């Protein structure tokens, strides 16, 4: 893994990190990727991959309003930055 690839991943993951931390990460990620390369040894021909942890089928219901018992007030109070009933964020455009 090189710096260009890490920078691309950092953009995708919405993470900003400094120079020294970045170096450490390049080394660590390279180590882990080398470790997981073992999977190339396995014959996976004709094997269906799992798509999750459950054997259940997804639950489908009508798209209608249900009272789930959450308090609007509690949820709003848990937001870090609010303005009345709205979430406050910095401006989108620089």
């Amino acid at each position: 893994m090189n710096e260009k690839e890490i920078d691309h991943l950092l953009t995708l993951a919405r993470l900003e990190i400094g120079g020294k931390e970045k170096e450490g990460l390049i080394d660590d990620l390279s180590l882990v990727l080398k470790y997981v390369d073992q999977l190339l040894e396995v014959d996976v021909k004709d094997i269906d991959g799992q798509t999750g942890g459950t054997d259940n089928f997804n639950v489908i219901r009508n798209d209608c309003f249900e009272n789930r018992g959450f308090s609007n007030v509690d949820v709003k109070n848990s937001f870090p930055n609010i303005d009345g009933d709205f979430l406050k964020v910095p401006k989108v455009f620089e």
Partner: protein
Amino acid sequence: MLIKELQEKILREEITIEEIVAGYLNKIKDSANINAFISLNEMAINEAKEADKRIGMEKKLKPLDGVVFAVKDNILVKGMMATAGSKILKDYSATYDATVIKRIKENGGIVIGKTNMDEFAMGSSNETSYFGLVKNPIDNDRVPGGSSGGSAASVVADLSLVALGSDTAGSIRQPASFCGAVGFKPSYGAVSRFGLIAMCSSLDVIGPITKSVEDCEKIFEIICNRDNYDSTTVDVIDFDKEFDELDLHNITIGVPKEYFVSGINEEVELKVKEFIIKLQEKGCEVKDISLKHTKYSLPAYYIIMPAEVSSNLARFDNVRYGAKLDDLKDLDIKSLKDLYFKTRGDGFGKEVKRRILLGTYVLSKGYYDAYYLRAQKVRTLIRKDFEDAFESVDFIMTPTAPTTAFKLGEKSNDPVSMYLSDIFTVPMNLAGVPAISLPLCKDSNKLPIGIQIVGKRNEDKKLLKISKLFEKLIGYKYE
């Protein structure tokens, strides 16, 4: 003391729940150096008083009356902090109870505090928490294991009667093994994840940590089975037969050769094998089996888990969860983009960032097939290994971890070495099968060794019943 004994004392009016809770709060204060807790329940004494009042009038107990829980800080308890051991959630307070908490409270259980944990459940030593590391109560120079280190430490140090943890690759079983407690990972889907801060949604399971299998059973009875708020939940198979020694003649234990390889601590291997021989002498059939894809479990996990982590942690962008803008002045946030990039860069620890980036990589264009898709196929093979094994054995027995508790700081600079602590526990998460760690004995350094028993998927109750018998035969002495 077991739940049963404690409840008998309450009914005989020898102790009140208020006294029980006050006792734990004092002990927690005296054991601050272990750092098992991130926050305490300020309402615990009041809740205890209410319970005493109700019991005084009704003269009977709910199933979990008197039972004081320490709850891992990634499980939501309404009105209490829910930090997941992270800076990015350090000010977050839960707005609802997780289903497991709702069920525990309805049955009389009291939450005394939220326990310390590896950040976002990523770790095997409880050294990555923003709130500082946790010390093993048995030996304060050593790790308690992770990521439910605070929960395991709380039970072993008697700071709560029982605890709840979460297990994605061994995070209940391994700390239980390192601290000397019973740690149970139910089948995937057996316990609702509604209200669990998600790490890896297809592997995460909530489970109890206790000092007895009977107490594990009592808690599991309350928290298990379908929940409409979590569509991955299932009803586990009912099983109420109590096993005794005579039943051992009708039981076959599988011992997988892949779990007794070089790298495992000699005493751990010896003690586990000694117990297996003891079972054989008492009439159990013991069969050598092969779970042939075992060695690929950890590599598969380190592709699947970071992929899901990168998705689950995308929500932490300081919009709905995070710090006030006034408190972020030193990050110099000028735009929405800055808000995302800088608060995530600052708010997540090193290990979390490592895994988010790994996950982003394996899901990205050009790598998805080679890594993620392949890992999910290997996962199918691992699951099949267990299914095939259970055609000829009733239970599988292995060491819980390759070593006993290692020293603080010993593995924190080598990620892969740290990851290898989970080598015996992660396959069970990938296969979705139930597994329990029982404290077996102490080694020559007086450190606990854990033995792991694995059952067939959804046969959690049968696994708990047989584990009660094994526990009796082990006769582990808690200090």
